[in-house]
């Protein structure tokens, strides 16, 4: 067999088409491609799952706004062909909160990394979840700060090596599903980027569910975290996810800690109903003020 890589189309007769018609491309700003993510990075795979989830869902594409913070995952807002905003570091959720209050008919999606959402933006995360703002938060967890050189993050597992902890981190990391659940998120799930189909379904469910929905997407950082900890490359990391993943829907989030080489508990952990911030506010003010309450114009017909 020849090793030529020019033979790209296996059956050109039945499907005459060029290499440029990848169906995901209609969701991407192709003038920004190729993207900056390293070979073997999991963020691109999570973007595939996200675009397929929107495609499958009942949402109107023109009504979706995507907000990112800073970091490798923060680039997602710049690459997706949707209304998007690339905020300052950690402030994706405050921006998204303002956006949701000003325009409740918009489906707000926050797509950011673990360092952005839980270190610098940790404060904003707990309060957005507490208020049950109607938005979806997708967090790509690659266990370190990828863009700035692999510093230790609040999600770095105990004893893992990062550039700022050359002998191993001694901090206890956040257990993100437990944090989200205890702060009041109505939908909490965790998948690795190996579980593409499950992740796609989970993102669709989160997008369609009203309230604060949160999905943690475990992804490899092949250049920094995976290489420094001698775990191989991105492909080896995905194979280890396949091996170590324990799918346990409805698991107790207190037992979902991630450690080096330990099991990765995946699944949908929380799916409850709770009145959202906007509907709670309108209901309460109607009760207190009666006829004197005037609903903002942008909320008319959207908030019940």
């Amino acid at each position, binding site marked *: 067999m020849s090793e030529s890589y020019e033979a790209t189309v*296996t059956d050109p007769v*039945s499907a005459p*088409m060029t290499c440029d018609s990848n169906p995901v491309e209609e969701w991407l700003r192709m003038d920004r491609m190729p993207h900056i*993510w390293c*070979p073997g990075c999991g963020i*691109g795979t999570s973007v595939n799952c996200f675009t397929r989830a929107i495609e499958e869902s009942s949402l109107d594409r023109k009504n979706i706004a995507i907000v990112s913070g800073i970091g490798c995952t923060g680039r997602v807002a710049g690459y997706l062909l949707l209304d998007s905003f690339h905020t300052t570091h950690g402030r994706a959720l405050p921006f998204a909160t303002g956006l949701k209050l000003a325009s409740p008919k918009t489906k707000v999606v926050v797509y950011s990394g673990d360092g952005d959402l839980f270190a610098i933006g940790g404060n904003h995360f707990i309060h957005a979840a507490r208020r049950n703002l109607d938005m979806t938060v997708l967090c790509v967890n690659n266990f370190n700060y990828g863009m700035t050189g692999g510093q230790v993050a609040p999600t770095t597992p105990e004893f893992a090596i990062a550039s700022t902890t050359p002998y191993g981190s001694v901090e206890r990391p956040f257990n993100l599903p437990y944090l989200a659940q205890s702060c009041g998120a109505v939908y909490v799930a965790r998948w690795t980027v190996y579980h*593409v189909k499950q992740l796609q379904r989970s993102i669709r469910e989160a997008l369609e569910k009203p309230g604060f929905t949160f999905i943690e997407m475990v992804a490899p950082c092949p250049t920094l975290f995976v290489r420094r900890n001698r775990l191989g490359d991105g492909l080896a990391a995905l194979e280890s996810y396949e091996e170590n993943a324990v799918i346990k829907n409805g698991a107790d989030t207190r037992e979902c800690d991630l450690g080096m080489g330990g099991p990765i508990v995946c699944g949908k952990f929380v799916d409850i109903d709770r009145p959202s911030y906007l509907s709670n506010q309108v209901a309460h003010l109607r009760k207190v003020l009666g006829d004197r309450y005037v609903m903002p114009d942008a909320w008319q017909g959207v908030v019940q």
Partner: protein
Amino acid sequence: MVETKKSAAPKAPKGHVVINTERCKGCGFCAQFCPTGVLAMSKGFNLKGYHPPIIADAAKCSGCGLCGMYCPDFAIYGVKNGRKPESGDL
């Protein structure tokens, strides 16, 4: 139900794969996670020096599109034969 007898002639593949070799960064996800083993990594290089995948066994392709789902660089996709890919195929 009557079982259909398998014909001796090889069946036409159910689907096929399209690879944009110049966008590929050679991570190998597609070849590793293809459920039917259609793809293999090439020993050849693309212009940027990565090893893109090649089609090792086109007849096995089912057109499931999982390669495109895994590809972090949007460089490959699978389609069922007999029609052009549409956005609904995602």
